[in-house]
């Protein structure tokens, strides 16, 4: 993101007396304020959808750190989402741990899982890594159904859990509370990611993506950075999975099929690779476009989905954020004139 702010010296140009940076701060504050007001203005069902968008945005941020910023392709991030979701569901089902404490545990488990998966993946580049992660996505639903794990995972049936109640004294419905609970996780996660990506670590991640050999000649330890990035990425997506389980109050193997991983990839490409703001557009896309496609044609929703995707990619080959950046350049030039 830091590169965004500074990519054009001419963009120091002012829009209505304020710099681009100031406008971004104002925009961010407005979005946050709107996010806080939102649950009081929409129906429960709409709130559920909004909450799911926020949860997907966290999952997409995880994948974007890995793929967009570090250049490692993953077709298997649905697996980490599933691990996070099942971790929370199993802990709530089998132990007395409070729901809020399951989230960091799910994150820690996914960090370890991602780090360990990243170690052998270090030897794989590009397409080969995509295939290895694809295998992960294919295997996960079957492992979750496997009958020897039944006692934990509930097998094909999955696990039904109850959603969190509003803490005493807060004048909120339980779905409103859950929305704020997700927001309380999402905002710090985005702040941490922003800090991570704007400094030395973020530059190292992007350097590895652009030219691994030169990056190692600059003193960047590729093995360390790539495996830790895999861990951090899986942790974000896993925390999203854990929040998603609280939201759905249900986990089952079939909710975490291969298609979920593909949707995550679609989300980050649609929103814009290596963009933090883009993941929200991506999350909106993957949450709403399937339903819209269903409205257009009950018979062939997938075909409609495919057509929408092709048109979007044709019109915005660098994603929503790429388009917005291009428009920003144009606007900047107009104002400078």
């Amino acid at each position, binding site marked *: 993101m830091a*590169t965004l702010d*500074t*990519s054009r*010296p001419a963009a120091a140009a002012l829009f209505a007396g304020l710099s681009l940076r100031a406008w971004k701060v104002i925009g961010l504050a407005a979005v946050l304020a709107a996010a806080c007001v939102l649950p009081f203005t929409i129906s429960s069902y709409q709130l559920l959808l909004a909450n799911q968008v926020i949860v997907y945005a966290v999952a997409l941020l995880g994948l974007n750190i890995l793929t967009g910023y570090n250049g490692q392709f993953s077709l298997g991030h649905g697996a980490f989402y599933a691990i996070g979701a099942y971790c929370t569901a199993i802990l709530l089902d089998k132990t007395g741990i409070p729901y809020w404490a399951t989230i960091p545990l799910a994150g820690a488990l996914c960090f370890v899982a991602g780090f360990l998966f990243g170690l052998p993946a270090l030897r794989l580049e590009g397409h080969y890594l995509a295939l290895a992660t694809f295998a992960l996505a294919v295997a996960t639903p079957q492992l979750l159904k496997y009958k020897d794990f039944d006692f934990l995972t509930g097998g094909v049936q999955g696990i039904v859990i109850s959603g969190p109640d509003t803490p005493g004294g807060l004048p909120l419905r339980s779905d409103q509370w859950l929305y704020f609970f997700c927001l309380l996780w999402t905002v710090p996660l985005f702040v941490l990611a922003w800090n991570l990506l704007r400094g030395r*670590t973020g530059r190292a991640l992007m350097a590895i993506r652009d030219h691994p*050999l030169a990056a190692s000649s600059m003193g*960047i*330890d590729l093995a360390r950075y790539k495996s*830790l990035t895999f861990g951090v990425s899986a942790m974000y997506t896993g925390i999203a999975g854990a929040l998603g389980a609280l939201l759905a109050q249900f986990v089952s193997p079939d909710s975490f099929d291969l298609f979920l991983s593909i949707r995550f990839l679609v989300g980050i490409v649609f929103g814009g690779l290596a963009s933090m703001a883009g993941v929200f557009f991506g999350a909106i896309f993957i949450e709403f476009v399937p339903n819209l496609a269903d409205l257009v044609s009950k018979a062939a929703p997938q075909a409609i989905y495919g057509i929408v995707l092709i048109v979007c990619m044709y019109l915005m080959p660098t994603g929503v954020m790429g388009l917005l950046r291009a428009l920003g350049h144009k606007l900047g030039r107009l104002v400078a004139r």
Partner: protein
Amino acid sequence: MSGPAANGAAKPLLGVDGLSVHFGGIVALDNVSFRVEAGQICGLIGPNGAGKTTLFNVLSRLYQADSGTIEFEGKPLLRQARHAIAPLGIGRTFQNLALFRSMTVRDNVMIGGHCRARGGFAANALRLPFVGREERTLGERALRLIETLELGAVADTPVAALPFGTQKRVELARALASEPKLLLLDEPAGGLNHEEVEHLRDLIGSIRDRLGVTVLLVEHHMSLVMNVSDKVVALDFGRKIADGTPQEVQRNPEVIKAYLGGEL
């Protein structure tokens, strides 16, 4: 300038001894030995395919040596990991450019300083106070180098959008940002016009004189090498054929033969 009195008995900054590299049946370097003293500018010349870039790539640990040793400040270099070379104090540029193309000039130069900072994942994510200080130091140093190399106007432009000659200067700034003791320059004059080469000569001189950096220079531009170097090493077909002052090397019959071909 730093370092001990340059009497011949002291350890050189860089000592290459009996270095050989094979690719399949091809001998890229054949028992090459030479030394570079601290504060020298050492030119490395030879016809195409003589093994100059191979030698650089062995020094940066991109290629494995088959036999021989390299000592840097008395420490064996060939046991180091690839990413440990920059922290030791060896910086380099690449013949065909190896920049981070989607990133800005400023970020490229700041990555050059990566090995002079230490903030890791957790410290960066939490933006601990020392990380902020490190960032400021790196940023200020990058800015000075950007100004020295006249890159100020393009500091926030992605590198891919810049002309070749400018990208070469970015590589030099990036290499200097790692605060090297030894700088390996791989054909810095390649693709530059006459005026730019003149400028480059002064620049290399001032890198040594003002920053105290020892320079090992691979270059085809003979007048540049002979003008700027304190000593010159000549390679041909992977063997060292001459080693001495520019005047000595220019007069060496083997060097003349290698460049002009034929029998003497």
